[in-house]
């Protein structure tokens, strides 16, 4: 036991360092207990350390989240930024539930378990709203695959993260349908794993993340509580340290074989309408879940720690309280309904125990071995500090470098299509089951079987008795955000928007997963604020609600930090999945149009990366006309054969990817686009996308798109890629040669 009330600042600091609390936080803790006239029990200190960690209370980001994200609702959003996941209306009876969270720190020390439990955790977030999880999304960020300098090599991290997602998602029976994989040196030894999940719920069966009924029983069900995953949240709020021995207990291993029946049991109990409140046990374990479910409902509880089912009999009380063991859910039920719940748990072979009862009190009381070991004000415990950290833009010398042209385009393109950031994702995504449940309409890959190309967004059929579909797309553009956090983040959102509308869907909601370095560094804080500001502006201008989000700070090692990575998950809806458009060319002789604005700049592009050219600014982009493009796509749906956005790799990669999914090539002339040959082919900025128009309906298409900026760039052809500019042939190559290089780009790593 610590003598907190007797400690001087130096001693407080030492204890605080161990717990991940700052000195001023330790001082307010000391003050609180001086006021009570006693020293805290271990469990009380540990509970505070959990609740006040960056991971749990968002102490560095809170004020900006309030400032920028609090008024981004819509008339069809039901719950945003309130409970464990967002609830958004689909039609009169049903809603979707969505959430995305990062699991970066655990994945850095134990990539397999870290990634798997990231998936497991996000499924529980959706489940605890009473929803059936139906699809998973994963955006992954890895270092240079050649790097071996870390505690674990990049290839080890990469392969194990992918295996973790594969094993968990496939075993639990929920398809992994969308996501992204990026490579950048800044993620060396600090991988990012952003996992998202979407579920479907009947509107009258939504369960809230609070309980306000006094006398309810608190029940924990699913996995047992063990020593695994102790101090996960404090650890997530600390800098990764190669020699940090204490990290070892912070690792959790998932168990999807328990999760699957747990999902059935919870949904069946919820069908009876007897759950008064529910939360998943994630970061911070009981400590976070119990405190939050009670505090949000304005009541408290008396907890009997002896009744918690344990994996390891020799655990200390505080360890039980903060353990982050997986596959556990917390439910509040009326005593009379316990029997009904018990029958269902039994049927599915799920263990559970009643751990306490709600009371009307402001203090949370915990008893263990006939002794009161916690008696603390819930408001004090859960409020946590709030900081307004210093921020300032990074100093940079403004210099715009002109990127040169390659000496030989054909050789350059051969190398270009194999680059890890551009080549096919088959080796990774084919490990995931993306069709289980049988509702995936537009898969991550599209085209001729075993000869597919990349999709823009994935679409699944959302409801049993309707053709309504939901589209999902997720990713970030860290190289752009690193140049300019505001404009870069806008580009991330533009890309999500383009991906969504390229499937014929209508953007419906935005989820952010903000990954940044150390918030105590003013330049990092500035990046975060600007990025949040951009998300807010974009959502307002495009009339999109921001429905849920997550902030992960301290993605750094002792010497460097990651590029700012605001990952955006965009949800779209389509009234009829039979209207979904895919990205591969469909038939020979169709005209291909570039629609929207392609910005004449190579800033942050993969092309500039090849020449190691760094830009210091991004051009401000007008993007509001994307709404108009979306409306026209909707109107001209029947005239469109295929669509694909222009993003990483520029116009060239988009054209190639469209041809890779079918036995068709392209005969293109890009003379009518503004810019130099290299900016035309490789610019990744702006609102541009490619549309293949049905040759028999070109006139109709042109009528519908008459007020939209567009350039006709060529026609689909038989199996050859020909691109000309100003009378010069840049490339004329058999499509299969390029496809082959593109397809096998990751072979040597995975």
């Amino acid at each position, binding site marked *: 036991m610590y003598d907190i009330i007797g400690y001087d600042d130096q001693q407080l600091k030492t204890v605080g360092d161990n717990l991940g609390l700052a000195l001023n936080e330790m001082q307010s803790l000391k003050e609180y207990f001086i006021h009570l006239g006693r020293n805290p029990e271990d469990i009380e200190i540990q509970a505070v350390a959990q609740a006040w960690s960056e991971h749990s209370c968002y102490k560095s980001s809170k004020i900006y989240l309030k400032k920028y994200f609090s008024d981004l609702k819509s008339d069809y959003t039901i719950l945003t930024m309130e409970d464990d996941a967002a609830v958004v209306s689909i039609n009169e009876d049903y809603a979707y539930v969505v959430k995305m969270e990062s699991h970066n720190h655990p994945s850095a020390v134990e990539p397999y*378990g870290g990634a798997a439990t990231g998936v497991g955790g996000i499924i529980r977030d959706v489940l605890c709203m009473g929803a059936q999880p139906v699809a998973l999304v994963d955006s992954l960020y890895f270092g240079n695959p050649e790097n071996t300098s870390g505690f674990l090599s990049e290839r080890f991290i990469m392969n194990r993260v992918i295996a973790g997602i594969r094993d968990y998602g496939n075993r639990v029976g929920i398809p992994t349908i969308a996501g992204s994989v990026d490579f950048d040196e800044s993620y060396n030894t600090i991988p990012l794993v952003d996992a998202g999940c979407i579920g479907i719920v009947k509107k009258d069966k939504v369960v809230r993340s609070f309980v306000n009924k006094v006398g309810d029983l608190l029940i924990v069900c699913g996995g047992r509580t*063990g020593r695994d995953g102790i101090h996960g949240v404090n650890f997530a709020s600390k800098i990764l340290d190669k020699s940090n021995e204490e990290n*070892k*207990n912070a690792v959790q*291993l998932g168990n999807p*074989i*328990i999760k699957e029946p747990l999902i059935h049991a919870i949904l069946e109990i919820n069908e009876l309408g007897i759950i008064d409140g529910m939360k998943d046990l994630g970061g911070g374990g009981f400590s976070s879940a119990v405190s939050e479910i009670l505090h949000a409902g304005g009541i408290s509880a008396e907890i009997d720690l002896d009744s918690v089912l344990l994996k*390891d009999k020799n655990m200390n009380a505080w360890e039980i309280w903060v353990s982050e063991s997986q596959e556990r859910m917390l439910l509040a039920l009326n005593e009379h309904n316990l029997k009904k719940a018990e029958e269902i748990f039994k049927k599915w*072979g799920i263990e559970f125990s009643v751990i306490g009862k709600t009371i009307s009190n402001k203090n949370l009381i915990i008893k263990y071995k006939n002794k009161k070991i916690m008696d603390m004000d819930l408001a004090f415990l859960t409020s946590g500090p709030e900081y307004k950290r210093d921020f300032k833009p990074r100093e940079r010398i403004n210099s715009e470098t002109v990127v040169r042209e390659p000496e030989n385009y054909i050789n350059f393109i051969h190398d270009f299509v194999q680059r890890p950031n551009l080549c096919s994702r088959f080796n990774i995504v084919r490990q995931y089951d993306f069709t289980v449940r049988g509702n995936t309409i537009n898969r991550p890959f599209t085209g001729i079987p075993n000869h597919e190309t990349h999709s823009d967004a994935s679409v699944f059929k959302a409801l049993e008795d309707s053709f309504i579909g939901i589209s999902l797309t997720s990713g970030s553009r860290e190289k752009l955000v690193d140049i300019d956090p505001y404009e870069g983040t806008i580009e991330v959102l533009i890309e999500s928007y383009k991906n969504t509308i390229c499937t014929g869907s209508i953007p419906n909601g935005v989820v952010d997963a903000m990954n940044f370095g150390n918030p105590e560094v003013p330049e990092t804080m500035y990046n975060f604020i600007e990025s949040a500001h951009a998300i807010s502006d974009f959502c307002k201008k495009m009339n999109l609600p921001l429905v849920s989000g997550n902030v992960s700070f301290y993605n750094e090692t002792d010497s460097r930090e990651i590029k700012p990575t605001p990952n955006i998950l965009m949800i779209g809806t389509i009234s009829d999945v039979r209207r979904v458009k895919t990205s591969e060319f469909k038939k020979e002789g169709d005209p291909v149009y570039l629609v929207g604005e392609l910005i004449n700049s190579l800033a942050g592009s993969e092309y500039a990366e090849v020449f190691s050219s760094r830009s210091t600014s991004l051009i401000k982009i007008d993007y509001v006309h994307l709404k108009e493009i979306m409306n026209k796509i909707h109107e001209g749906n029947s005239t469109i054969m295929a669509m694909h956005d222009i993003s990483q790799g520029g116009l060239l990669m988009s054209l190639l990817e469209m041809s890779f999914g079918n036995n068709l090539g392209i005969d293109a002339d890009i003379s009518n686009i503004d810019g130099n040959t290299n900016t035309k082919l490789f610019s990744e900025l702006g609102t541009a996308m490619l549309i293949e128009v049905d040759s028999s309906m070109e006139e109709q298409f042109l009528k519908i798109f008459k007020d939209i900026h567009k350039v006709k760039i060529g026609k689909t052809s038989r199996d050859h890629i020909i691109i000309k500019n100003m009378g010069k042939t840049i490339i004329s190559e058999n499509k299969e040669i390029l496809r082959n290089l593109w397809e096998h780009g990751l072979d040597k790593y995975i």
Partner: protein
Amino acid sequence: MRIRVEVKYLENVEDPEALSIQRNLSLLGYDGIKKVKTYKVYEFETSLGEHDSFEEINTISERILTNPVIQDYKIEKISD
């Protein structure tokens, strides 16, 4: 020289495969099983002497076969 490497989870790290086996054995009526653990075993044949073999396989085990955060390993000689 033939060498055997045995990899296991550290104490306190949950072993989901073993738990599933244990659970299913009890469903099948094998009530006498108290605990199950899973191990992974590798066998190597080297062209090196004993000292060098152990050194090399130790490095391989540490760098490639295991993640020290959750796993532990044991190296044994099987035969010359």
